[in-house]
């Protein structure tokens, strides 16, 4: 187990290295003089020069990269061009909010997806099964941001049950979490269904039934536990979609997280903010994927630590 952990960690390092090059490259690859673009069209020569010096853009590229990497490793990501606040502080404030949203999204996708999938498998080829699968297909085909806007229209504008924007209270979390989780819930439901159908055909399930175990026990105890492994895989694979979805969800609900910060940064051309938020999102994505892989190895002893 320890060796496996070590090996996975070693594989993650070149990836993070590549990520840092991409993030560094964003400012390098934009057409034109980055300092001029950041300063704006109306900026004086001096303002442009100040930015160039502040960002070290007058030094050779490898040196710039070394400074960038050195800063990033120490958590120094520069200052926002827009309001001068240190990027690290901004990210530190917002990251927990994005995390809260993402976790609630996963919760919704499991709480909706797994029961729907089980029901669909147990009632295979009935109207319950087909309507659940139609729900799942519509769920994956719906643009997530459109779902969010519809939820705002119904529950905030018309019924006025829940707030549309803001993040202070738990009520504020409900609509964003549903928006983020429902698409993954559809995928989780499909996976749970097919895994359950597979498992319910196995000999040991027949044995459990033959020895007189109640159907509820057969489903919940014998079948579900083995069907959950591929479901955990799908939930793990959904992490990327959830982070993508968080960017959109945060924009719909004006949720002040890292995703919203990234979008605002792009729209205002605030490059330190863009670099910082992308670095944070990509790093946490790599770390989360690593954690999911380790979790499988822990959950399913049949997975070998090679």
């Amino acid at each position, binding site marked *: 187990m320890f060796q496996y952990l070590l090996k996975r960690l070693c594989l993650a390092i070149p990836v993070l290295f590549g990520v840092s090059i*991409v993030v560094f490259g964003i400012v390098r690859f934009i057409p034109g003089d980055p300092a001029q673009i950041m300063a704006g069209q109306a900026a004086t020569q001096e303002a442009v020069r100040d930015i160039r010096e502040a960002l070290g853009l007058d030094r050779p590229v490898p040196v710039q990269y070394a400074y960038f990497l050195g800063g990033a490793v120490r958590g120094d990501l520069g200052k926002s061009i827009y309001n001068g606040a240190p990027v690290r502080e901004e990210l530190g404030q917002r990251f927990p909010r994005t995390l809260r949203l993402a976790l609630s999204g996963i919760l919704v996708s499991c709480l909706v997806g797994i029961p729907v999938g089980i029901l669909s498998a147990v009632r295979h080829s009935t109207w319950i099964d087909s309507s659940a699968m139609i729900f799942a297909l519509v769920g994956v085909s719906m*643009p997530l941001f459109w779902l969010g*806007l519809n939820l705002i229209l119904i529950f905030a504008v018309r019924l006025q049950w829940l707030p549309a924007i803001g993040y202070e209270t738990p009520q504020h979390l409900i609509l964003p979490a549903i928006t983020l989780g429902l698409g993954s819930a559809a995928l989780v439901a499909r996976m749970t269904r097919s895994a359950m159908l597979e498992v319910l055909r196995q000999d040991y399930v027949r044995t459990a039934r033959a020895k007189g175990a109640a159907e509820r026990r057969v489903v919940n105890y014998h079948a579900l536990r083995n069907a959950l492994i591929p479901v955990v895989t799908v939930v793990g694979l959904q992490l990327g979609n959830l982070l993508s979805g968080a*960017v959109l969800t945060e924009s719909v609900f004006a949720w002040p997280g890292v995703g919203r910060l990234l979008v605002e940064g792009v729209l205002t051309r605030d490059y330190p903010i863009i670099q910082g938020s992308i670095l944070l999102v990509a790093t946490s994505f790599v770390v989360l994927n690593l954690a999911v892989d380790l979790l499988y190895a822990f959950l399913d002893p049949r997975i070998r630590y090679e």
Partner: protein
Amino acid sequence: MSDRTTAGVDGVAKEAEVRGQRYRAAAAIWRRLQRNRGAVVGLWLLVLFAGAGAFAHVLSPYDPYFSNLEASLAPPSARYWMGTDELGRDIFSRILYGARLSIVIGSISVAIGVAIGVPLGLFSGYFGGRFDLISQRLIDVLLAFPGVVLAIILVTVLGVGLVNVMIAVGIVSVPSYARLIRGQVLSLKSREFVEAARALGANSGRIVFRHILPNTVAVLIVQATLQIAAAILSAAALGFLGMGVQQPTAEWGAMLSSARQNIQLAPHTLIFPGTAIMITVLGFNLLGDGLRDALDPRMKL
């Protein structure tokens, strides 16, 4: 030396038979597809979508860019079937032109993804070694960014606009093709027919393009169909964020972006473009699932 001159008359007859077999196989796939209710529904949805896009100039009652400020945000009526937007433009006409744009976005970005991803996967899987190692690490780096975030990075560097959106969405899909094809190649290259071709003296190019590539077409078709759906969703998301196709272009995501400002006054501006996206994406998803079952029921994708 070409096959035909050496093989002579027997070869021609054999070729005709191979063609017959292929035709029968295609007919069998088509029959299986027709028996799949979901796939048929998907196909019809796509016919509707393609028809709307292709004949947008004939079908739309108004110019999609003509703004009638007196009728801004008008609700659906006999005059404006789906109402008007904040500038008094006919939403129905804009949705039809949006369908045309989505056909272009979906097909070109999938073409970009296939054109980069498939050769990458083919060579990576067939030759292995250092090329494989380097390209796999590059793909790992691409996969370290969640899809929308990668698209945002590319649009930040390339700039907004239709062409750059298609490039960005296409590049985001490269890893999925490269991984898929690489996996296929790895399992195909040790099969007997490939060894037979090698024993007969075929060079690498011939083996890759004549023997391996044709055998990956089935999974590729399924993947590409599902990817068109994903591409349309990503492009709409970029449009919604204001980083995609720009106003005043009739693009579904951008339409939703401006609908959001008027959500209280004019919910119809929100409902129709979103439904258009959903129906189109649903069509591709249904067809993709159906194709997978029809081409090879055991296909894992």
